[in-house]
């Protein structure tokens, strides 16, 4: 059995559900942005700025951002635990995987803080 210490929800079913829920949020966000960009008559800076000044858009964007963070953590966890194994990489595999996960955590926290700064114009 794979140890669940570095998964997102500490068990596979929770991760599975979060992966699906986050996928739906991101899909909605992508389709909405495409719709907005192509359906806005004079799409440009004014309309764009106006959109992102709305509270609901900031919350929608924050939800999408949180979805990306959770989704990427779960997704990359699945990839790393598949390939960075002692069978494929030898005894150092776990240490290497943990370093990768640590780096990923730094990247994802950066995305989160940076995204909040963008959205709230900090």
């Amino acid at each position, binding site marked *: 059995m794979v140890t669940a210490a570095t998964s997102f929800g500490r068990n596979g079913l929770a991760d599975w559900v979060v992966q*699906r829920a986050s996928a739906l949020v991101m*899909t909605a966000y*992508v389709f909405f942005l495409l719709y907005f960009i192509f359906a806005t008559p004079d799409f440009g800076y004014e309309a764009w700025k106006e959109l*992102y000044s709305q509270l609901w858009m900031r919350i929608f964007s924050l939800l999408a951002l949180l979805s990306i963070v959770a989704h990427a953590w779960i997704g990359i966890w699945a*990839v790393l635990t598949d390939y960075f194994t002692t*069978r494929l990489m030898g005894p150092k595999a776990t240490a290497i995987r943990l370093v990768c996960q640590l780096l990923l955590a730094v990247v994802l926290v950066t*995305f989160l803080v940076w995204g909040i700064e*963008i959205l709230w*114009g900090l």
Partner: protein
Amino acid sequence: MNHKRPVNLDISTIKLPVTAKVSILHRVSGVILVAAVAVLMWMLDTSLESAEGFASISEIFSSTPAKLLLWACLAALAYHLVAGLRHLLMDMGIGESLEGGKRGAVLVFVIALVLIVLAGVWVW
């Protein structure tokens, strides 16, 4: 663990069926997307900064290498999204049979290809 334990799944000797190709590309595109998110967030940041920032986006993405980079990001997103939606449909029991799985896989390639071409048209 017993290190002499036989391992009988040697992927390098297996010819991948279309369903496996869809699956591995979904994985590859997912990993690429982590980097793509950084590019897209940088674009959002710059475009919201000021009118000049917004205008500078199209300027910056006027060179071929930059266009290729943006296209690669959009292609990874388009492919991952379409293949991801197939996952969600299959979770609901749609297209789970062997035949249905193969048809779904081909459909993912066709739809993703169309979207990627459209994304290219948009970028250029």
